[in-house]
């Protein structure tokens, strides 16, 4: 009995991976093939981009502040509090900005995509769209993916800026250090590879969170309960995949652009 359950679970997992791969590939190739639904793209860009600004700003500010608080205590032991700015900016730009933005936006938008598309599936709206001769993948999925990739890129920049600002505020107001020194250190030690690394990641994370959200939404079964299940799966898998892919990407990018 237990072996049968394991076998069934393993088969389902393999099937899900296969279905997701096909779905993600079709959605990706649709990005380059007409018709491209620009109005839908703009609507989604507004929902995903502007709608997520508040959480990204708050997360960025808090994370930068925490980084400054934690690092200054440790750096003080070596008399190196002056490099707090460098530490915060490099950590935010190379790592925490992209990944925190990815996870936060995933919590907000992968779930919304899965529940919205899932509701459309269970109320036969997706079938109705297909019956009306419109490809739901092009009409609903591709604009969401394109909008997420685009907006996550800019949201990451906002998050980086807020993180550095948050670190600066803590450094000046709570650690009573020099603000100019903080900003100089934050700026002067930045190199192009750091910025490139930080801005390549959101492109992948945006694709992952939107394609996972849409994938689980589009394969929803089982009525309203199924919608809830899809939403949970979308958020969990998008977050886990973002963190896992971040590890792989960091490895690859550090190999391509090694730190000095």
């Amino acid at each position: 009995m237990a072996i049968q359950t394991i076998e069934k679970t393993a088969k389902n997992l393999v099937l899900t991976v296969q279905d997701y791969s096909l779905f993600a590939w079709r959605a990706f190739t649709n990005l380059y093939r007409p018709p491209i639904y620009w109005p839908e793209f703009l609507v989604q860009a507004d929902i995903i981009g502007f709608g997520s600004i508040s959480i990204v700003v708050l997360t960025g500010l808090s994370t930068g502040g925490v980084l400054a608080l934690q690092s200054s205590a440790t750096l003080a032991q070596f008399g190196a509090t002056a490099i707090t700015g460098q530490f915060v900016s490099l950590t935010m730009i190379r790592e925490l900005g992209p990944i925190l933005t990815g996870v936060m936006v995933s919590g907000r938008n992968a779930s919304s995509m899965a529940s919205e598309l899932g509701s459309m599936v269970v109320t036969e709206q997706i079938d109705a769209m297909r019956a009306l001769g419109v490809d739901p993948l092009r009409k609903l999925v591709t604009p969401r993916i394109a909008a997420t990739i685009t907006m996550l890129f800019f949201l990451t920049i906002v998050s980086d800026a807020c993180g550095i600002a948050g670190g600066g505020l803590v450094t000046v107001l709570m650690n009573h250090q020099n603000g100019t020194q903080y900003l100089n250190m934050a700026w002067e030690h930045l190199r192009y590879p750091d910025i490139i690394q930080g801005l390549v990641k959101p492109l992948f994370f945006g694709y992952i969170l939107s394609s996972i959200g849409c994938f689980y939404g589009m394969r929803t079964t089982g009525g309203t309960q199924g919608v809830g299940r899809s939403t949970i799966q979308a958020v969990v898998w998008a977050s886990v995949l973002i963190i896992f892919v971040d590890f792989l990407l960091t490895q690859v990018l550090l190999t391509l652009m090694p730190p000095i």
Partner: protein
Amino acid sequence: MNETGANPQPDQEQAPITDAGPVVVFRNVTIAFDGPPVLEDVSFSIAPGETRVLLGPAGVGKSVLLKLVNGLLRPDQGSILLFGEEISHMPEQKLFPLRTRVGMVFQEGALFDSLTVRDNVAYQLIQEQVPDAEIDQRVRDALRFVELEETFDLFPASLSGGMRRRVAIARALIRTPELLLYDSPTGGLDPLTSTTIIELIVKERDVSHTPSLLVTHRLQDAFILCNHRFDPEQGRMVPLPKGVTDPGTTFLMLEEGRLIFDGSLHELVKSKNPFVREFLE
């Protein structure tokens, strides 16, 4: 008619085929979802101008059969011809243009809840970038057909169940389809609203002569369709003289995924198949 006892095999060769060729042909279609077949070895056809009523209790695969007709589902075995084209293995992208020639009314209407009635009805026209003025005119015409002109700017959430079905019918009709598919259009509605919906279907049948496949488990709907015609002078449905039925309206019946009846109303009521008898009684 095809009826051979408890578990008969309807024969495709006996299905009515006119000179123009059937609009839909099913040949030995079988489909299953993780279990026993939902439909097994189903064969029938729909001729031009013909209205076929698919009867059967809930859960016998009627809606599945309807979704197979325009390729929303794919059969495991057998072949399906839509407008003469084999669609069983046709890629989804090639199916989209074919589907624009088919109007489909879903069980609960399946209206897009984030769009107004106008945008729902005009959905295909908007995709085809038809000018707004023409869209408005055609939507008003379609809504007038279903007697719901006043709902033009409303959202589906503010409509009753019957109104949603009528809007769904307007959406299916707006592009003058060559085939109409109705999935339990009266399911869950009160008798009065059901009759209104059936009257619209009779009106479409007698005014446009569009071939159609109607799925229902309500015998009274099927009989009304057969025993009535639309009178354009009176602008309403009127009963046919006693003993006269619409010759273009015929019946199919499913039992546990198998087609057990294919014939006219007269043949249906005379049927000796125990399942048909039980269903009729």
